[in-house]
Structures are given as structure tokens and as C-alpha cells.
């Protein structure tokens, strides 16, 4: 019963390095999301996808890129990491939005530190 799986769980980068976070879900959900959480703050939406091959910007998209080549996978990329991107990243998925709205199913999070 995997649900939403994120890899890696932890990563330390140097400023300017690049990396990709992988999110995989096995619930056949159409919608997938990337959120970030900073200390003492709520989750903020980075990018989301409403289906395979689609992506859209959320609240804080700058410095990130995403791809959804397969329905079950949603990748978050940092091309040139900055210390401001030190955060915990959560991937989530939900069934097709509509009636009724779907709740979010979250992964366990990926803790990224940029030195």
C-alpha cells in the first residue's frame, strides 16, 4: 500500500547545483502537486499537473521546473539551487477534481538543504 512515494528523502546541495525530486503514486490519480513547507509556515504550492503531459504554475514557481511524462510520476527540478530553496518538499496527488472535491494524499516529504 505505497500511496505517494518521494525520492530522495534527504539531500544536501551546494549553491548552483541541480537536482530532481521524483514523486510516484500508485492510486491512478489524475492530479499531482508539489508543495514546499518552510519552518513555522504552511504549505505553499509550487507547481501542479491536471493530467499526463500537463503542468501549471502554483503560488511560488520561480526557480523550479516540473514534468509529468507519465500519469504516475511527477518530477520537480531545481536547475541552479539557491539557499532560499532549503525546505521540505511534499508531493501530493488527488482524484479528478469536480464534485465532490478530492482530498490531497501526501508523500512523506523530501528535506533539501542548499549550502
Amino acid at each position, binding site marked *: 500500500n505505497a500511496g505517494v512515494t518521494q525520492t530522495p528523502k534527504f539531500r544536501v546541495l551546494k549553491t548552483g547545483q541541480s537536482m530532481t525530486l521524483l514523486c510516484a503514486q500508485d492510486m491512478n490519480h489524475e492530479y499531482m502537486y508539489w*508543495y514546499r513547507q518552510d519552518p513555522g509556515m504552511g504549505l505553499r504550492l509550487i507547481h501542479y499537473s491536471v493530467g499526463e503531459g500537463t503542468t501549471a504554475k502554483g503560488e511560488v514557481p520561480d526557480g523550479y521546473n516540473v514534468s509529468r511524462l507519465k500519469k504516475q510520476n511527477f518530477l520537480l527540478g531545481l536547475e541552479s539551487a539557491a539557499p532560499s530553496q532549503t525546505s521540505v518538499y*511534499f508531493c501530493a496527488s488527488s482524484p479528478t477534481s469536480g464534485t465532490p*472535491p478530492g*482530498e*490531497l494524499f*501526501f508523500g512523506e*516529504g523530501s528535506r533539501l538543504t542548499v549550502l
Partner: protein
Amino acid sequence: DQQVKQNSPSLSVQEGRISILNCDYTNSMFDYFLWYKKYPAEGPTFLISISSIKDKNEDGRFTVFLNKSAKHLSLHIVPSQPGDSAVYFCAASGYTNAGKSTFGDGTTLTVKP
């Protein structure tokens, strides 16, 4: 401009008593509200939700109340248990895509035995 606010960063209650967590919002376009619970080193998990056409939704020990005129909602936990100790996030969204939610900063609930 924070659209969803949880003004109490922390709350401590005794086991068996009621826990009341509060949330205020400013965007009148929000019409669907959710509560998530988060334990350390885990992802948030959905707890309970309410749509704007209702003023109350109940699920076991958890009840969410919505006051649209005041743009205020609250989560009641009765009775509180030590296992309820966690961070609780309030989230709000438009009805058609609840995944695009705006989250509050969270309230850390501690239930003392």
C-alpha cells in the same frame, strides 16, 4: 497578504477535554475547507472537510464548524487523546479544484495525559 490564518501557533489541552483549533480566511471566493493533520517526519493526512453550503460537518470525535459571515472555521476534537498531538493545518480552496489549496501556518496541538 495571508489569505488563510491560524492565529494560535500552539495549543495545549488535557486528555479527555475539548480541543478547539481556529482558522480565519479573507478570500470570499473560497468555498471548500479542509483540515489536515501532520506528525513529525511524515506528510500531512486529510482529517475532515466542509463545503460552504454547510455550517457543520462531523466525523467521530472531530467536528468542523463554518461561519461564512465571519469567514471563520473551527475544528473541535472531543475528547482529546494524546495521539491527537500533531500539527493541524487549515486549508481553503475553490470548489472545482480542492487540490489547489491555500494553507494556514498550522497549530501545534499537545494533548497531555
